[in-house]
């Protein structure tokens, strides 16, 4: 047993290194002052970290992605919580038909979904805007929040709500003071994951972006296809840093009022 677990630890360490190796490599080449990506980097400078802020497309895309990410994860969360409450107490139809259907935006090929949205908006005659992207991202945010909220709700002893109701709380008060504190950390985790999914999504947005509503990952994607310079790496690193900051903030929000 001792020998197998030592082997296991070596394997786990190797896989662990492999999992973050691409990130380390991108970070390394992002400091390359040269005009194209190569390994080993030709030097060390913050050139691309400075130049990216004077690139109008990148700055606009960053702003757009923050708006889309926050809006879609917020809307998705606000509408998914009541749906989770209904499904948790619903019957076989909610369980066997509605729930899998509401989760299906997670498994459907996202490029296909993006294409469907493009056709939909061209039928309605609506011009493409940030709103059209927000709608798509809201739909794919729903499964993330719904799944985790429902899991926490099913874990919750039914007596909690019953006790509140017997003590005279109306349904809203029972939700606000009993259910919401209980599901809070789960909801925050689901919402932050929905944000990350939106903030890094390429396939759903790809067909919906124009010069005005371009998102950050789509801008990076366009650069990767046309122009392979270290700025792409620098912007990707900044994108990951933004995700880390958001995760740290939401972890704080999810952690308070516990225990």
């Amino acid at each position: 047993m001792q020998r197998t677990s030592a082997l296991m630890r070596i394997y786990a360490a190797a896989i662990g290194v492999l999992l973050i190796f691409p990130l380390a490599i991108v970070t390394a080449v992002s400091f390359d002052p040269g005009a194209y990506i190569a390994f080993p980097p030709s030097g060390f400078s913050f050139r691309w970290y400075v130049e990216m802020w004077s690139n109008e497309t990148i700055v606009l895309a960053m702003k757009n992605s923050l708006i889309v990410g926050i809006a879609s994860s917020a809307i998705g969360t606000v509408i998914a919580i009541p749906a989770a409450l209904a499904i948790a107490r619903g019957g076989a139809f909610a369980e066997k038909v509605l729930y899998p259907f509401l989760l299906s935006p997670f498994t459907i090929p996202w490029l296909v979904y993006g294409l469907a949205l493009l056709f939909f908006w061209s039928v309605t005659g609506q011009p493409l805007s940030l709103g059209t992207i927000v709608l798509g991202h809201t739909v794919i945010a729903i499964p993330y929040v719904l799944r985790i909220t429902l899991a926490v709700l099913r874990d919750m002893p039914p007596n909690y709500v019953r006790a509140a109701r017997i003590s005279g709380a109306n349904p809203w008060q029972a939700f606000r003071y009993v259910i919401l504190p209980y599901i809070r950390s789960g909801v925050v985790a689901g919402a932050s994951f929905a944000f990350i999914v939106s903030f890094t999504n390429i396939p759903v947005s790809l067909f919906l972006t124009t010069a005005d509503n371009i998102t950050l990952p789509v801008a990076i994607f366009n650069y990767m296809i046309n122009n392979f310079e270290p700025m792409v790496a620098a912007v990707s690193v900044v994108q990951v840093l933004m995700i880390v900051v958001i995760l740290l903030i939401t972890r704080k929000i999810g952690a308070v009022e516990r225990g």
Partner: protein
Amino acid sequence: MGGSRQTLGRGAAWLLLGPVLAIIFVGYVLPGLALLAMSLEVPFRWPTVFDAFTFRHYERLLTDIYYARILGYTLAMGAIVSAITAVAAFPIAYYLARTRSRLTSFYSVLTFTPLAVGMNMLTLGWMVILGRTGFINALLTGSGVISDPLQLLYGWSSVIIGMVHVTFTFMVLPIEAVIRQIDPALEKAARTLGAGPIKTFVQVILPLSMQGVAAGFLIVFLQVCGAFVLPLLLGGQGFTMVPISIWEQITVSSDKPFAAVLSVALIAISIAIMTLQLRIMRGKDLV
């Protein structure tokens, strides 16, 4: 528990579901119908609908051997990546399920990174590792093992490597969840009765965790069949899977109806796999 579960009144339930259903209807059901209409070339101009339609794009999909081959490549890629990921992820899932330490909680954060950093980051990383002027070639030429850089990037192998990486978490999670439910006493009993570690693994742990492996396999399979960014950039010129072909129909040949037909075919595959998944899971939430 049994009868104590409160059920909501119908009115209250629909009220709670209303907002989600409204968003799903406008943002998901209607776009789905628009896709279907495009694939049949329905001259869809609101409010006049269904003037005419044609199956000719579906006929093209069924008769052109080129697209049958692309479909085959896509499914083959799904099967290969799922199999490799299952083998690679199983020991990690076992390790995470059976050990508790500060190291394992750090490790579970690590297994989540592929989901959290975005496809552009991971794809770029592998492009720099495998590229002509990339990490591996720099290492090999620098140490004098080879004089000319190898062609590692582009084609099947680089797409497989990248896809195993990005789908790794989806395989670890369900297997880990299932192994957690296996009573460790079973392993101890097998060992006490004289089974070696390998026999214990093959005859006790593996059969009991097959449900998790199946769940992971199907999720990864779905992810691979729908993957676009990574196969496009790591596959290079001439490498095609269904999503890449869909993108080319739009950006290169501007054939919207045929892009829609390919999309419908891909969705049909996805629905088939999802149905299979629901059957296997029987209501269990593993991911």
